[in-house]
């Protein structure tokens, strides 16, 4: 599961400078669990952007949309309908999109509003543990499910190779 945190509002405003119509898009999976880019978070960001733009004297249009599943066809059971939903919103006149989560299918400019911090698991409310660094060379089969990368990437991997009987690697 991807764990993320929202970018500072100033950074988001800077990215959206020059655009008059913005659609904030949230995702109902990973970023909803870590309270960075789910349904409620996009509504909050939308209200903040709306007020911030009005304070700056720019009454531009903002809207928000929450997708419940992946937008890519064939991925995680996603039928692509969520992607169709996203595309259909050009009918509402919202032509520029600021995306609150990473990755999207769109012919419009997409800006990330969250920073991915790590890939981990949710152990409890607000308790995340890093379990993967996407190193693309997984050795969990050798280490009994204990990933050597997150804690001490080089030192531990080297120690593992030198001392396969080391307690923490068993």
């Amino acid at each position: 599961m991807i764990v993320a945190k929202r970018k500072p509002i100033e950074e988001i405003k800077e990215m959206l400078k020059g655009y008059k119509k913005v659609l904030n898009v949230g995702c109902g999976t990973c970023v909803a669990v870590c309270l960075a880019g789910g349904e409620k978070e996009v509504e909050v960001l939308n209200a903040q952007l709306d007020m911030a733009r009005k304070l700056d004297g720019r009454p531009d249009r903002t809207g928000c949309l929450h997708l419940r599943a992946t937008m890519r066809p064939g991925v995680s059971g996603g039928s692509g309908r969520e992607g169709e939903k996203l595309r259909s919103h050009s009918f509402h006149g919202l032509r520029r999109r600021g995306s609150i989560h990473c990755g999207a299918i769109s012919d419009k400019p997409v800006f990330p509003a969250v920073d991915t911090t790590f890939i981990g698991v949710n152990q409890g409310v607000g308790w995340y543990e890093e379990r993967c660094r996407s190193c693309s060379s997984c050795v969990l089969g050798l280490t009994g499910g204990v990933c050597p990368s997150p804690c001490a990437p080089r030192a531990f991997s080297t120690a593992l190779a030198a001392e396969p009987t080391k307690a923490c690697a068993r």
Partner: protein
Amino acid sequence: LLRFLRVFGCGPGRFHEAGLSSQIKIIRVPCTGKVDVMHLLRAIQKGADGVYVVGCLEGACHYNEGNLRARERVNHVRMLLEEIGMEADRVRMYNLSSGEGPTFAAYAKEMTEEYQETWGPTLSRESLKGKPRGRVKHDHDWSGEGL
């Protein structure tokens, strides 16, 4: 002039006896724990000049911790307003018992005075023209599909 002061309050208190002006709109909720961040933000977004939440005294909540949760949400909204350069004091949380109508009115007066002396309008009248755009409505409901 103060446009609106929104108040979210819980319980059947005698707040209506406090002699409040028509600019103060009270929204009653079963418990202040029901008041969401979006309720407070949307009130400001739609032109309220101030919002305050009135919950039970701490330790006296019928739902045990509804007022404590409301306070945390109020603090979160204050932080969100500060982020965009708005005065955090526009959103406040007070704890009162249901018999404290005069104190309730005194808080409203205090916020009104502070508005007149310090804050000024939240958003200009021109910028409030038109409907604030929230969640986009869509024609098709695909809820749950694709998961």
